[in-house]
C-alpha cells in the first residue's frame, strides 16, 4: 500500500465494499491506481501557498458508512445559518450530507427531456458511456497528491447530464452539506457535468459547512461544455470555520461554447481553491467571476487559470475580494495563450480590498503568451477603504460603520450582480452581511 493514509487491508476492504455496492470494475481500477500513487505524488504547486499545510494525514479517510446513502437528514437540524442557504423549490436537486446522498430529484418535464441528475456512483454503473470518457480527464487523477486522493477515495459525487439541444430555464441545484458530525474526518466528493452540444442551463453548486469542526474536505468538479453549449455555473461557499479544504474546478469549453463560472466564497475554511477553464476548440468563450471575503485568521489560496489552446478563444477573469481581521489570502490569476491560439483574447482583473491593518491579500497576475496576433491584459490592485469615499458618505449623515458597509458591498457588487439564479441573490447578500459582521440597514 503506497499511502500512509490507509492500511493495505483497509484499502482492500474498501474496494470489496464498493464492488458489493455495485461500483463497476473500471471505476474500481481507477480508484486502485490512484490510491497507489497518492503517496508518491507531490502536493499541487500553488503559487505562494504550501498545500502541504492541509496535513491530510491528520484525518481519517475511511469514515463509517463509506458509500452508504445518508441514514437520515433533516434540513431543520442544520446549524444556523446554513439552512438559510439551501435552495427551495428547485426543479432538479441533488443533496448530499456528510459525503452521503440524501436525495437526487428531478422534475418530470426535465426527465422527459433526458436530463439526468443523480449520484455519480449510480451513473457510473448505469450510464458508463456518459461517465467513463469524462471522469478524471479535466482534472486528471494523477495530477498531484490531492487529486489522486480524490480519485481514490471520493465517497459520493453528483452527476449532471443535459442532452444535446436541451435548454433548461430553471437553475439546477447541487448541494453539499457538512454537518457538525465530521470531527477528524476527511470527506472527498466530486461533481461531473456533461453538457451536450448546444445545450443551455444554469447549475448552482452550494458548499455548506458547519462551523468549528475539524474536517478535511476535498472536492473535484469537472464540467464539459460540448460544442455550442452555454453553461452558467454558480458556486457558493458558506461556513466551515476550522475546516480545511481543497477544491479543483475545471471546465472544458468546446467549439463556440461558453462556460461562465460565478463563485462567491463566503466560507470560513482554510485551504485552496483552483478554478480552471480549458479552451481546446476554436471559438470557445469563458468567464470566471469571483467574489470572496476572508476573515478571522483564515489562510487561503485561489488560483484562476484560463488556458487557451485553440484559435479565437476568449476569456475574462474578474476577482474581487475583501480581507479583514487577520486573514491572509493569495490570489493567482493565470492567463496562458498557447502557440496556435491566434486571435484569442484573455483579460484578467484582480482587485483586493483590505479592511483593518492586519489583513493581507496578495494579488499575483500571470500572463504566458506563446503566440502573436492576440490580445491579453491584466490588472491587479490591493488597497484599503478610500478615506475620501468614507468622508463623502459620512458627510451625508451615514455612520462610519454604515458607510463602510455600503463601500464594501459596492466593491463586490460588480461580481455579485451576476448571481441571478432563484433566491441566490438574496442569500448571497445575507451571506456577505454575515461574513463581514455588518448590520443590514433594515435591522438596525
Amino acid at each position, binding site marked *: 500500500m503506497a499511502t500512509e493514509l490507509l492500511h493495505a487491508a483497509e484499502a482492500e476492504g474498501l474496494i470489496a465494499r464498493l464492488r458489493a455496492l455495485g461500483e463497476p470494475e473500471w471505476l474500481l481500477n481507477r480508484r486502485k491506481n490512484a490510491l497507489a500513487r497518492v503517496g508518491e505524488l507531490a502536493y499541487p504547486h500553488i503559487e505562494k501557498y504550501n498545500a502541504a499545510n492541509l496535513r491530510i494525514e491528520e484525518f481519517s479517510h475511511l469514515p463509517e458508512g463509506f458509500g452508504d446513502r445518508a441514514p437520515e437528514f433533516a434540513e431543520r437540524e442544520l446549524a444556523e445559518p446554513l439552512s438559510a442557504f439551501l435552495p427551495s423549490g428547485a426543479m432538479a436537486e441533488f443533496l448530499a450530507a456528510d459525503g452521503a446522498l440524501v436525495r437526487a430529484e428531478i422534475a418530470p418535464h426535465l426527465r422527459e427531456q433526458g436530463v439526468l441528475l443523480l449520484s455519480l456512483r449510480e451513473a457510473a454503473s448505469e450510464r458508463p458511456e456518459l461517465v467513463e470518457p469524462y471522469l478524471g480527464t479535466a482534472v486528471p487523477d494523477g495530477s498531484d497528491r490531492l487529486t489522486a486522493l480524490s480519485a481514490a477515495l471520493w465517497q459520493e459525487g453528483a452527476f449532471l447530464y443535459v442532452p444535446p439541444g436541451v435548454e433548461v430555464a430553471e437553475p439546477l441545484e447541487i448541494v453539499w452539506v457538512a454537518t457538525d458530525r465530521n470531527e477528524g474526518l476527511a470527506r472527498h466528493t466530486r461533481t461531473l457535468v456533461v453538457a451536450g452540444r448546444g445545450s443551455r442551463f444554469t447549475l448552482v453548486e452550494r458548499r455548506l459547512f458547519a462551523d468549528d469542526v475539524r474536517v478535511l474536505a476535498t472536492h473535484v468538479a469537472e464540467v464539459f461544455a460540448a460544442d455550442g453549449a452555454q453553461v452558467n455555473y454558480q458556486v457558493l461557499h458558506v461556513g466551515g470555520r476550522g475546516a480545511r479544504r481543497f477544491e479543483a474546478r475545471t471546465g472544458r469549453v468546446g467549439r463556440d461554447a461558453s462556460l461562465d463560472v460565478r463563485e462567491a466564497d463566503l466560507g470560513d475554511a482554510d485551504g485552496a481553491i483552483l478554478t480552471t477553464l480549458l479552451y481546446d476548440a476554436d471559438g470557445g468563450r469563458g468567464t470566471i467571476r469571483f467574489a470572496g471575503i476572508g476573515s478571522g485568521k483564515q489562510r487561503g489560496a485561489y488560483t484562476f487559470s484560463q488556458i487557451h489552446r485553440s484559435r479565437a478563444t476568449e476569456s475574462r477573469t474578474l476577482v474581487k475580494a475583501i480581507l479583514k481581521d487577520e486573514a491572509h489570502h493569495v490570489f493567482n490569476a493565470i492567463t496562458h495563450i498557447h502557440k496556435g491560439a491566434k486571435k484569442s483574447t484573455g483579460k484578467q482583473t484582480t482587485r483586493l480590498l483590505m479592511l483593518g491593518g492586519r489583513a493581507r491579500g496578495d494579488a499575483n497576475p500571470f500572463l504566458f503568451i506563446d503566440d502573436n496576433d492576440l490580445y491579453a491584459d491584466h490588472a491587479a490592485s490591493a488597497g484599503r477603504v*478610500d*478615506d*475620501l*469615499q468614507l*468622508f*463623502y*458618505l*459620512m*458627510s*451625508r*449623515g*451615514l*455612520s*462610519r460603520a*454604515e*458607510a463602510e458597509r*455600503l*463601500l464594501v*458591498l*459596492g*466593491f*463586490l*457588487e*460588480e461580481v455579485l450582480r451576476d448571481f441571478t439564479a432563484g433566491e441566490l441573490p438574496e442569500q448571497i447578500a445575507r451571506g456577505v452581511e454575515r461574513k463581514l459582521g455588518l448590520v443590514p*440597514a*433594515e435591522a*438596525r
Partner: protein
Amino acid sequence: MAQPELVIEDLHVSVDGKPIVRGFSLTMRGGEIHAIMGPNGAGKSTVAQAIMGHPRYEVTRGRVLLNGEDLLQLSVDERARRGLFLAMQYPSEIPGVTNADFLRAAINARRPADSPIPLTEFMKQLNEALALLEMDVKMAGRSVNEGFSGGEKKRNEILQMLLLKPTVAILDEVDSGLDIDALKVVARGITHLASPERIFLLITHYERILQYVEPNFVHVMMQGRIVKSGGPELARELEARGYDWIREELGITDEVVGQEA
C-alpha cells in the same frame, strides 16, 4: 422650528501643516443666502471642507457654532445629522452603490432606527426631486457619481440636498463647468429649498450663479479671511471690475495663501 444660526468664529485651518485659512469669521441666520467670492487660492473651499470635517483639513483655531453647539467637536456624520450639508466641488465616485440606495440610507440615518422612510414615500420624494432638476429617472439606479459628467455630478449634489433638506447648505462652486441651462436648473434647486429655516452659503468664482440665486450678503475672501462684505451689488461690481481694485483698496499684494484643495 426656531430660526437657525451658524456662527464661524476666528477659524484657522491648515493643510499638511500649511496655514490656509487665517481668521475667518462669519455669522449667518435662517433665511439668509450668503455668497463667498474670491480669487483662486484665497481659502474658500478650505473653509467649506474644514467645517464639514474633511480629514485632510486641520482646524488649528476657532469655533463653528450651529445653534450654539460647536460642530468641530462632532464627527463628520454627526455634523451632517445636525443639519450641515456640503455640496462638493469634486464629489467621490462610489462604485456599486446606487444613488437610490445611498439616498435612502442617508435619509434613514436622520430618522429613528425603528422608523425608516417607507419605500413609497422615498420614491415619491426622489421622483419629485429628479423632475425638479430635470434629471433622468435612470440616475437613481446608477452608481453614485460613477461615470457622471461634470454637470451630472453637480446636479446629483443638489439632488441630495433636496432630499436631505439640510439646515445649513454650503455649496462649493456648484456652478463651475455648467452651461447656462444646467446653471438655471441648479439655481432652481436652491431657490426651491430656500426658507427661513435654512441657511445657504454659496462659494463661487463668478457672479453668474448669483444672477439666478440672489444672495443677501456677498463676502470677498483673500489671504484666508473675509476682507470685504456687501450686498448683491458687490457681486456685480466684482464681475465688472475683477479683484484688483479690492487689492489696491486694501493694500494686498499677494492674496494667495496656499494651494486650495
